[in-house]
């Protein structure tokens, strides 16, 4: 199981970065190095992302600009963003930000000794931050396990499972459906498929 977690670290690392900001050139270049001839074995979302990168590799700079604009359109605005990246938008009855659901996420972070750097400015339940939280927990679980602190490691694993199953899986599919339904950019269609499949 620990080996699986070590591998999953990478995917959470990728997801947090792609939700917190528009993709960097480094990430896109690395994706372009991945062979596309992996048959039907790979995650379909990931395959779509890779093929989008390959399709645009001759016009990378222009495409990066387009991705940045698409990122802004999908998640920021200024027009109503079609995919609001905060859990409270999906989980609160009022569809507003900084609701009780946000505070619940803050409590979960705090229980693991963590807090958002820009506390009270960035709502705690941004998709990118939540993926980062899972990324962090996974890292700690592995560390503790390898240091032989099995009990602490197991406790943290439970925290992680609670967070994914009791919170993220409640809203990430709704969020990724919104992305899928409102973008024509294969890269983001792929990202939406990848993120929801990964939580299942």
């Amino acid at each position: 199981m620990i080996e699986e977690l070590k591998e999953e670290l990478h995917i959470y690392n990728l997801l947090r970065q792609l939700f917190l900001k528009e993709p960097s050139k480094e990430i896109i270049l690395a994706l372009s190095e991945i062979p596309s001839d992996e048959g039907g074995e790979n995650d379909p979302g990931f395959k779509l992302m890779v093929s989008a990168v390959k399709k645009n590799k001759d016009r990378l700079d222009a495409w990066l600009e387009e991705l940045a604009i698409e990122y802004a359109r999908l998640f920021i605005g200024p027009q109503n963003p079609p995919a609001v990246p905060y859990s409270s938008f999906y989980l609160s009855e009022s569809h507003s930000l900084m609701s009780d659901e946000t505070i619940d996420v803050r409590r979960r972070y705090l229980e693991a000794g963590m807090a958002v750097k820009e506390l009270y400015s960035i709502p705690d339940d941004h998709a990118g931050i939540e993926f980062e939280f899972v990324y962090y927990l996974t890292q700690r679980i592995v560390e503790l396990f390898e240091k032989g602190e099995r009990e602490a490691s197991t406790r943290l694993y439970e925290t992680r499972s609670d967070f994914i199953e009791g919170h993220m899986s409640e809203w990430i599919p709704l969020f990724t459906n919104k992305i899928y339904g409102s973008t024509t950019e294969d890269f983001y269609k792929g990202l939406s498929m990848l993120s929801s499949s990964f939580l299942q």
Partner: protein
Amino acid sequence: MQVSRRVFLKYAGAVSGLAALNKTGLLSLEHLSPQEAEAMQTAMGKYEVKYTADAMCPAECGMEMWIKDGKIAKIYGNKAVPMNDGIACAKGASGQQLVYSPYRLKYPMIRVGERGSGKFKRVTWSEAIDHIGQKLTDIKKKYGAESVIMDCGDVTDRDHYYRLFFAYGTPNCTEHGAICDTPRRHGPKLMVGGKRWEPDVMRPQLVRQPDGSLKKDYTYKTKLIVYNGWNPFVATRIFYENRGTVGAMVENGCKVVVIDPSLSNTAAKADMWLSPRAGTDGDLFGAMLRYILENDNQNDPDRKYIDSSFKKYSVGWDDFEAAFKSWWGKKDPVNGLGYFSLDWAADRTGLSKKQIEDLSHLFGITKPAALVWGMQSPGHHYNGYCASIIGVALNVITGNFDVPGGVIDTELVKSDKGGSATGKDFKKKKVKRVIDGKEVEGEVEHFHMDLFGSKYPAAWDDAVADYPNAFKEGVDIRYGPFRGHHYPIKAYILRTGNSVLTGSAPHKWKDAILAKDAKGDYKLELYVFIDTLNLESALYADVILPEASYAERQSLSDIYPSHQVIYNRDAVIKPLHECKKPTDIMNMLAKKLNELGDADLKGSDFWEKYKSEEDFVNEMLAPAPGRVNVGTPLPYPQYPEGYKLKGTPDSLEKGEVTIDNEKKEVKGKPVTVEWLRNNNGVAIWPMSWYRYRKHNADEPNKAFPNTSTKLIEFRFDWKDGDKRYGGYKSYNEKIEKAGGEVPKGLKEVGFDRFPSTFFWFETKWNPYTNPDYKKYEKDFPFQLICGRVHHSMSGTQMIPWLSEIKTEGTWQPMNKEFEADVPEAMPMGEEPMKTMKMKFKANTYSVGTIWMNTDDAKKAGIKNGDLVVVENPLGKSTKGKVFASGGIRPGVIKIGFATGGRFSEGLGPAYKTRDYTPSHNDLVDPDVLSPIMGFPGYADMIVKVKKA
């Protein structure tokens, strides 16, 4: 784990490891120390009460917000603030829906498509500031700093931006007042140096008692209020007026008369509703004045209208009266009758002679009384100046100005908060320009596009509605030292305003912002939009900067009380997302300009001086209250009468002061943010009345009001020996120095200088009072007026809660079916409100409508709810649903201000209804700008209506 994941994971490691990580590898989370975690754990779930003001609304009532876990959990009115005395209206209580709206602006953005296409990308603050800084630096070098306009839209917190741009070198800084109601304020400004006349109904008032103590007084004294085109029950900037009006009616038997073509909520509760034709306010006021002058009899207690003691406190009445009377013998070309007679006024206003006579008598005989005119009457008509000047005269000669229960000029008595933070001293900086080959020196302020421009040199509140012309044609300076200087407008910085939608006609604004030069570049080289909200004007911007919402930034209340009251609008939570406070935006931009070589922006004036917004606010507070010790009862009998008061109420009370006899100033301990926070957020100094006369003698105190003679002035420009006086003096001097060159506005009404006393001219687009428009009467049988729906103004229509309340005929449940989240009050349990998803059936959710009279609708075959097109003689039209009722004068159509056709998605539900809600602004004639101050004739239009 699925096989496919495994295959993927072998690559994912390579990909994800590349991103630059900080030491801990975390981008947005951090590890807390055990102590930090414990402190946060303890704090979570506890309430902290903070005092602030509701600046999502122009009333800016005092609020207390209860903060839990860094978020606004509860909102109440602040009981210590007399403006609202603890009350929060629906709008005040719905603040969370604005602050936590998912649709607000969150990050700096730069446009990537054509202007208006709505395509933006997210950038960092430093990229955005760098972009703006570079552009402003280029523009200043190429065209001069005066080519930049800073439009602060909302009045609140404009000072940071004014300071920045005054220092940069442009005097062209403006705010919402320019498109609010300047003709309405004109009479008070000209005749007493003030602005807003309101009835004396703010309660409680802090009043000095005969035994020297101070008491909160709740008694009402007013016996009559006449509201002309003013609707305090719905659209109020002066929140105490709604409860004060009811209080005076119930507790003091006060009568209320409402003059309005539509049955406003205030009219519905009034003792008398008069429904004249639109745009005839001045006609009615003129007839009232003539009636009072003709029928006053000092020996008959039933005809003793005039209180002649006003003559001691004023100057120039005889000239004013003579000029007014000179019109009585002239024949009006519209009806052949002598001006201001009852017959004349009846013909023009459509009221009966008896109604006008009764009103004139009632106002003349009832004391104390207050005649008040609103923004939606004189404020929005081309000739509103005449009405507001006559309005001042009516209140003054009947003895109602600044008496207990009478009418108060709230501008003259509010606390001063204009410390040097506002940066007005920068406007005095000497600058040079080459004009016609000659080097000329002047001051920054002499570049002002209106005050020294060719059109409206008396536009002391600026002429924002004329900006589209300036964007396209530039500015001609015709007065002052830079006479002959022409400059283009190259940058427009718009902050918390929505001029594209409401700054006169939207098509004119769009056209000017999109205009290109021969090379295909935008003529307006830079357009920056700064706001919390995503309004229509954002769609046209090059750069968007997200500003902290009203609850996330600090400043002072902008209010109109009947005596000096000031309160801290505290930042109650941290700015959400990447929004920044005005102080920070000011400092960042100043620093960037400095780095780019602009020596006019210095650290000592900005980022080194104001380390926090509190520093800035403390400097604004330095002169408070800044008013003179005058009136009866004297606010501070222990200090000399007429001396200026500075300092906290408690230090003045306790005598902890220094008295400067040379400067005539009493100075206590300075009012500071800290002092306010320790005193429920608010400072209150004592009320007094008769502030124009000595407290112990029947003679002027020469310290109040704020005119050239410190008397009420019925003359506007005159000489006495070598000295020249009057409110129009300086403007006429400009004209004289420019060889008699007449500004465009005055030319339009046939004047060659600003008048020296009473004047009169007709409004535009009114076939009933201006013969030029008689020809349109048949084809365009309706007068179009507009009115504010208090809770659904331009910037608050994204709040669903506020559409659950209908208002008069302009905001009615006439929606198409949709789903929405609806908060319900929860009397039990921890949360006071709970939101539920509800399906709104058709006609259950309020939207902007077209309000017309039932008989008019019937005649045209129009039923309630029919979709109609409203068209003006200029070929412009708008579409909406009809709300037909008896509560509006036949021949008049009313549309709410900015209540329809909202084309920014940031407006949420309002955006969804845009196809069947009308935009009044689409029908405004952009070329009707009133002659003295360039104000748009929002309510001067005629239309026809047909089924869509």
